[in-house]
């Protein structure tokens, strides 16, 4: 008799499962359509009303007509009481659009204005520049303003898409992992598909691994699609190009494996298919809202933040953003990866207990 091949059986299952997923409307909607809709909405909402955030250098003279006039324009928000180091950091990220330092010139009534712009926010820097130029030529101010010195700090432009896309990607992986796995294993069990499989020499591990390969493959294709669409149509930042994409896909794989664990648990505790969505929502919805998918978790009230910091998606999102925008390597986000792995171990420990084959 020919030697039975577990690998062949696993791959046959992976292929079948992948074909099935690709033809399942709900999988495609959850993995691609939802995240893309959010990316579109936020991608276009991005702009909004223009405000220019201008940092005041710590040793700057505050009571001078230049800053007073800037405040009056209504377009400029002053950021005060920050250390020079903080300001430099904010400037590099584009969180402030410029830093202004005003000194009275020695032995003179005139002021010297030092402005540092950032390449992370050239548009707004440009607006500020023209505002300042207007000041300079303003007849009333002219005698008191002697000179404007300008410099530009090199920084990366941080766009709305850079925040939204990793969050949506994380959400897409979460729903693919949780809903997909839960539905598939429940329905395979209920329609006795798994029982029929057991009448063949296939091993249980082959069924789980085959199904996992298909789902991870599908999730990665979805992730790649979202990343590339974001990059080419919305200017999503990929600091090291293809390497960054690769790092993101590795993180995505880890994420989807962890999230599939939730799916295994749900398929075990749900009695029928109509119970899957409510239980799945208990898992996905809090993470969707609290894990920094739409807003930075720093924006949440302080009592809510510990909850956010307990959720696995928070760390996946965090790691994705660091890798994509700040160009960090996987080793730099080892803390996030470690927490995801700990979550994974915990989830699979429960899954092994509650998962049902028949």
């Amino acid at each position, binding site marked *: *008799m*020919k030697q*039975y*091949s577990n690998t*062949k*059986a696993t*791959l*046959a*299952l992976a*292929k*079948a*499962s992948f*074909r*099935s997923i690709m*033809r*399942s409307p709900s999988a495609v909607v959850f993995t691609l359509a939802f995240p893309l809709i959010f990316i579109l909405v936020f991608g276009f909402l991005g702009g909004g009303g223009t405000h220019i955030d201008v940092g005041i250098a710590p040793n700057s003279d505050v009571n001078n007509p230049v800053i007073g006039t800037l405040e009056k324009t209504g377009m400029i928000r002053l950021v005060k009481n920050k250390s020079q180091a903080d300001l430099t950091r904010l400037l590099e990220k584009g969180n402030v659009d410029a830093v202004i330092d005003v000194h009275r010139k020695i032995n003179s009534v005139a002021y010297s204005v030092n402005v540092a712009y950032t390449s992370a926010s050239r548009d707004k820097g440009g607006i500020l520049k023209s505002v300042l130029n207007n000041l300079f030529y303003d007849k009333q101010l002219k005698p008191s303003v002697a000179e404007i010195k300008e410099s530009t700090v090199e920084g990366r432009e941080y766009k709305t898409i850079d925040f939204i896309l990793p969050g949506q990607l994380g959400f897409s992986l979460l729903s693919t992992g949780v809903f997909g796995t839960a539905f598939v294993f429940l*329905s*395979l069990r209920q*329609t*006795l*598909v798994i*029982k*029929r*499989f*057991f*009448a*063949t*020499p*296939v091993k249980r591990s082959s069924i789980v691994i085959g199904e996992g390969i298909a789902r991870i493959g599908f999730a990665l294709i979805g992730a790649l699609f979202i990343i590339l669409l974001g990059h080419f149509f919305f200017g999503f930042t990929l600091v090291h190009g293809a390497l960054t994409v690769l790092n993101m896909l590795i993180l995505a794989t880890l994420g989807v494996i962890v999230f599939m664990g939730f799916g295994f648990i749900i398929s075990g505790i749900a009695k029928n298919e109509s119970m899957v969505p409510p239980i799945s929502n208990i898992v996905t919805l809090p993470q969707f809202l609290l894990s920094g998918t739409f807003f930075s978790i720093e924006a949440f009230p302080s009592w809510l933040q510990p909850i956010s910091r307990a959720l696995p998606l928070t760390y996946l999102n965090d790691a994705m953003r660091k890798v994509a925008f700040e160009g960090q390597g996987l080793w730099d986000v080892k803390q996030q990866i470690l927490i995801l792995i700990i979550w994974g171990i915990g989830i699979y420990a429960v899954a092994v207990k509650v998962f049902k084959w028949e």
Partner: protein
Amino acid sequence: METKKAIITVNNLVKKYDDFVAVQDLSFEVYENEIFGLLGPNGAGKTTTLEIIETLRDKTSGEIIVDGFSVDKQAQEIKQIIGVQLQAAGYYPNLNLVELLELFAGLYGADIKPMEMLEKVNLQDKAKARYKALSGGQKQRFSIATTLINQPKIIFLDEPTTGLDPQARRNLWDLITDIRSNGTTVVITTHYMDEAEQLCDRVAFVERGQIIALDTPDQLIDNLVNSGFERKKEVKKANLEDVFIHLTGKEWRE
């Protein structure tokens, strides 16, 4: 049967669920290359017995040998030489018949041509159809196709004709007879006695988890007649099913 070599031996099989005895002390043999029928009312333990032989269910006690392999220790070997059609089993969603057969080929580690398998059960026209879109008879024939992938020595068919119309039923009988002619042993359960009489070489009657009779259909009928049994009504030379087939034609439609 000329050659009476047992391919399945069941000795003192017992299956207990918590407070319910599904199978009690069942013993029988299935001979090589016969069509063996397990008959009996619902809940008599037919399916449980089959599933224990198929290694899908644990037994409480007893011994089962399938082609020299023990179900206790050599379940994997048994799975490679049997084909199983389950009552009401579904198939992987969203796949067409060819893709499903490819999947099963992988699961059995067999090299097959899906179209050839479909031709065997006369479903080549449905190659691109989903299992769900098939008629009752087509579904059963497809299920039988999946049992043949690993060229098994024995196939188990659990109520394959339940719910089929007379034409589809006769069509399936022909298929099963063909499979047997190719050297495969067939174990079948059914509720239809005419089917058992036509199809089976030997039948076992199962009642409350026990075998109450086992012989060829002919012998069982003779035994009853010899005991003085008479039908209440004079038997006619045809029955209503013959009328149905005569009127609607033998040709099988979907």
